[in-house]
């Protein structure tokens, strides 16, 4: 009798809880609060926060693979089998086995998986979502397709020079990589080059891009990187204005830009195709992200497949967002997230946004020096993407300087250029570091 009550009690989360999980559940709860009450990128942070809570439910192992669950709960016999499959004779702690597993090849993984499944362990639901949505790399691509189907390149086509602003703003990405390397050099942190590159992409201010790169270069940091990317995207209205004001004069901010020309349907149809061809010629490693992005945009602009385009920007992107968010939440595990590295990622992410903003504004000022047509430097900050938030910020700060000056449409150019820019940067990272 008593030992059965004991069994029941031992199956409770209260009994199995470890402090790290409690902390992670609290952090996930904070994300939910920020998303629901403060409107921080709710479409992503609600699923991420909720997924984070589920992933840290003690004893449920929803974010674990069958093998990981076996390591945690298996009987000594099963563990012995697993150790044997790992070619380990003697071992004092399971962590030894886990480490051996993490460093072993695919064949060994399959062998242990078979043992775990035979022993009745199963992959957690969130693990399955992560495996299908992110590990495969598919979900970010599908979301990029949907974003492409929602993007209007008209303002960009009306003023192609704004692409340079989208280029300059990517300085935040690479400067952050340097920063992460510097922290490692100073011994504050221990980031590999791949990790540094993945952290830098936070400066791209583009969620799917950051998740895609992190899943390829630093899966262990994916949770922290995604959380930091989406949080700072939500904080853009707080982060950018002071920097923009500091780097510009009153009269620069008041510059009125010339009305954008009307862009023809045909130009809009040809743009995604040209962009894809350039990607193919210059940077094949950016092809998955930018290819799907162009595909979505072509579906929209061609006007002949509206039912596909509508689905891509509604049912399909919504479904994918739900599972992408839960999958990111699955990466909010205590052992990965409650690490000094996360502090580094959060601080570096902030730096990345600031640097990108500054680079965009300064680039705009430089272009004003060289070109004849006036450019309001405030639209430079929109080059970090964070669509459409950053463009709205440019507009708002502009109105402070000149209540008649509506910069929104002008800022949309660098804004979407920033999406392209960071996808290009992502391709470079994967090509040079991956």
């Amino acid at each position: 009798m008593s030992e059965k009550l004991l069994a029941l009690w031992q199956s409770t989360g209260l009994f199995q809880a470890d402090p790290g999980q409690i902390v992670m559940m609290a952090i996930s709860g904070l994300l939910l609060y920020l998303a629901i009450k403060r409107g921080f990128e709710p479409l992503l942070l609600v699923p991420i926060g909720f997924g984070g809570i589920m992933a840290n439910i003690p004893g449920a192992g929803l974010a674990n693979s069958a093998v990981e669950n076996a390591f945690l709960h298996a009987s000594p016999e099963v563990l012995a089998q697993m150790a044997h499959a790992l070619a380990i004779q003697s071992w004092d702690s399971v962590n030894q086995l886990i480490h051996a597993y993490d460093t072993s090849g695919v064949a060994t993984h399959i062998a242990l998986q078979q043992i775990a499944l035979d022993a009745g362990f199963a992959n957690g639901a969130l693990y399955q979502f992560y495996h299908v949505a992110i590990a495969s790399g598919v979900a970010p691509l599908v979301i990029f397709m949907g974003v492409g189907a929602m993007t209007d390149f008209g303002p960009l086509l009306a003023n192609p020079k704004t692409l340079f602003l989208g280029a300059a703003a990517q300085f935040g990405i690479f400067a952050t990589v340097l920063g992460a390397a510097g922290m490692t050099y100073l011994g504050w942190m221990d980031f590999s080059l791949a990790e540094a590159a993945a952290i830098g992409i936070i400066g791209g201010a583009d969620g799917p891009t950051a998740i895609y790169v992190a899943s390829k270069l630093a899966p262990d940091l994916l949770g922290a990187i995604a959380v930091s990317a989406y949080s700072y995207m939500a904080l853009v209205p707080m982060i950018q204005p002071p920097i923009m004001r500091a780097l510009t004069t009153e009269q620069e901010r008041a510059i009125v830009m010339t009305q954008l020309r009307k862009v023809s349907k045909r130009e809009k149809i040809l743009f995604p195709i040209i962009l894809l061809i350039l990607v193919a010629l210059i940077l094949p490693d950016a092809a998955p992200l930018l290819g799907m992005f162009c595909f979505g945009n072509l579906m929209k602009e061609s006007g002949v497949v509206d039912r596909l385009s509508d689905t891509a920007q509604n049912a399909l992107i919504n479904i994918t967002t739900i599972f992408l968010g839960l999958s990111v939440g699955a990466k909010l595990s205590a052992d990965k997230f409650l690490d000094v590295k996360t502090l580094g990622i959060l601080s570096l992410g902030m730096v990345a946004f600031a640097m990108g903003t500054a680079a965009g504004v300064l680039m705009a000022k430089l272009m004003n020096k060289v070109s004849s047509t006036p450019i309001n430097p405030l639209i430079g900050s929109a080059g970090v993407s964070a669509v459409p938030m950053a463009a709205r910020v440019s507009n708002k700060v502009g109105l402070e300087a000149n209540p008649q000056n509506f910069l929104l449409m002008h800022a949309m150019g660098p804004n979407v250029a920033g999406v392209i820019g960071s996808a290009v940067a992502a391709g470079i990272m994967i090509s040079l570091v991956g």
Partner: protein
Amino acid sequence: MAGNFFDVAGSVAMQSDILNESLQLLIYGMGTVFIFLYVLVLATSGMSWVVARFAPEPEPLKPAKRPSQPSRAVHPDVLKAIGLAVQEHRRERR
């Protein structure tokens, strides 16, 4: 996958290496970004010029397509919506 030219260094991974590697990344990266977007600016401007010069006003083609497609795309819900909306409205006009 493709030519990762830091492999060797990467495997050694001395603090100083990562610093100059990421510096190189900064240089090559920003370089490629600017080259890529510069070419894109040229290609886009060229395309716009060609369109404006040789094939202006393709608008006519669009209105021809749009009405047909969407109606198919949103068919079920919308037709019901119209029906209901109109009844609804008649009802409250009485």
